[in-house]
């Protein structure tokens, strides 16, 4: 058995002590291609955020294979689109791992940025400012930045939300290319058809992990029904979790 890229052990993540992800354990193998699914409020985005290291666990641990480079695309990326920089500069930020805070872009780096623009079909948009783009164009640009990040683990939160069919198909093809290159992909998705057609593994969340494995085994009527029942409201008066003291 290979070493896992990500190991979640009894992981609890949340806001202000209220758990959004509750005692989840899972292993993400290198090269795996996983969809995280579940009802609204199931903690999918929180789980992804935790995997990205953007959130400290309330309890439990999250282990990463040493040297793993992570790229994380949050849902509706909170960009300030009125800030006047060019799309080129935004995409080129994907080379941070090469340039750091101070290094300049070499000719080779510039070529790589232009190539990324071509691969997402945005050639000629380099000098546009961010406020002059449609939602789909911006998402393509963010994918160009992901290409440049050259990450081992790519975390995508609703990458296809509010995107037209053509763009959606292009972006999905790009995600599959990354998978074919041996990268590990974990994506939060809502569209069950896309999950069934494209994602070999799934993780069904309802604050806790309902099921994790081959997509066909996870997406059963029984599992989906259980997930819906398990979603409870955020309880202001919630007691201290009993599993907490045990662990």
């Amino acid at each position, binding site marked *: 058995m290979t070493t896992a890229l990500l190991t979640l052990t009894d992981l609890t993540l949340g806001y202000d002590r209220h758990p959004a992800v509750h005692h989840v354990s899972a292993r993400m193998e290198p090269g795996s291609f996983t969809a995280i699914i579940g009802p609204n409020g199931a903690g999918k985005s929180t789980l992804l955020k935790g995997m*990205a*290291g*953007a959130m400290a666990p309330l309890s439990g641990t999250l282990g990463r294979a040493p040297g793993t480079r*992570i*790229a*994380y695309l*949050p849902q509706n*990326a*909170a*960009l*300030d689109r*009125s*800030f*006047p*920089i*060019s799309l080129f*500069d*935004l995409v080129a*930020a994907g080379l*941070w*791992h090469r*340039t*750091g*805070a*101070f290094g300049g872009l070499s000719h080779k780096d510039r070529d790589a940025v232009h190539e990324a623009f071509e691969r997402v079909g945005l050639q000629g948009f380099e000098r546009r*400012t*961010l406020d002059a783009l449609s939602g789909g164009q911006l998402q393509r640009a963010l994918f160009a*930045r992901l290409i440049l*990040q050259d990450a081992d683990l790519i975390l995508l939160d609703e990458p296809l939300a509010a995107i037209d069919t053509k763009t959606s198909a292009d972006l999905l093809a790009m995600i599959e290319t990354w998978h074919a290159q041996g990268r590990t992909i974990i994506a939060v998705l809502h569209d069950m058809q896309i999950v069934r057609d494209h994602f070999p593994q799934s993780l069904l969340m309802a604050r806790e992990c309902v099921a994790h494995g081959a997509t066909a085994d996870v997406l059963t009527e029984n599992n989906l029904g259980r997930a819906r029942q398990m979603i409870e409201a955020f309880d202001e008066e919630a007691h201290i979790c009993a599993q907490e003291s045990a662990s």
Partner: protein
Amino acid sequence: MIFDALIAPFIEFEFMRRALVGCLALSLAAGPVGTFLMLRRMSLFGDAMAHAILPGAALGYLAFGLSLTAMTIGGLATGLLVVLLAGLVTRATTLREDASIAGFYLISLAIGVSIVSLKGSNVDLLRVLFGSILALDDPAMMLLVAMSTGTLLVLALIFRPLVLECVDPAFLRSVSRAGGPAHLIFLALVVTTLVSGFNALGTLLSVGMMMLPAIAARFWAVELTGIIFTATLIGLVSSLCGLILSFHTGLPSGPAIILVAGALYLLSLSFGPQGGLVLKLLPQRHLEA
């Protein structure tokens, strides 16, 4: 004639030359810093900080008399303290940055006014608030130029993280921890710029030197680099014209410089090619694509 009006004052009077060097150095730092403040929707932050530096400046004045160096260092110390405290509170609590800064700058202002009124008179307070170009001696000018140079260099160093922290903070967090420090360092640069300006312009008007050129520049350029260069240019022109205006009319130098910058802002607002009012009001037919 033109020589007499525009150039002779600087040749004849040493204090005018010193003022010019000081104001030009200040414009070089204030333009870029003001541009970032404007783009981060923090245009009023400078005004708050101008009040926050009062206690330090007043203490410096009480301890060493009208020594600009002492007042500068005192102002710098209180300004940085307020920024640091506000930054820590923002990170540790649910308060937004504007609220935490408001809290500390108001305390600081009250302390400052108390110090001034305990020992000094209103005339002294006016000098701290509105500056006096005549008081700009050699050490004070060297300090001002050194602080402006330092501000520019540090801004250049943190430029990339600062821009990313403005545009896409979540992305920056995912690749580096530089975002938080870059933002705090930038706030410190606002303080150094303000403090270096208060010798010549006073604490209140050195805010104008940061904000007016930057806001005017928005009407001329589209991209960040262009806005920064335009803002700096407008600052330099305002300094030169303001000093000449002040020399001939007897207006205090601070208000004269800011009035020129204000006039340039109104001109830009009216005639600027990027969203200026005149272009907006002209009937224009829409494009094909």
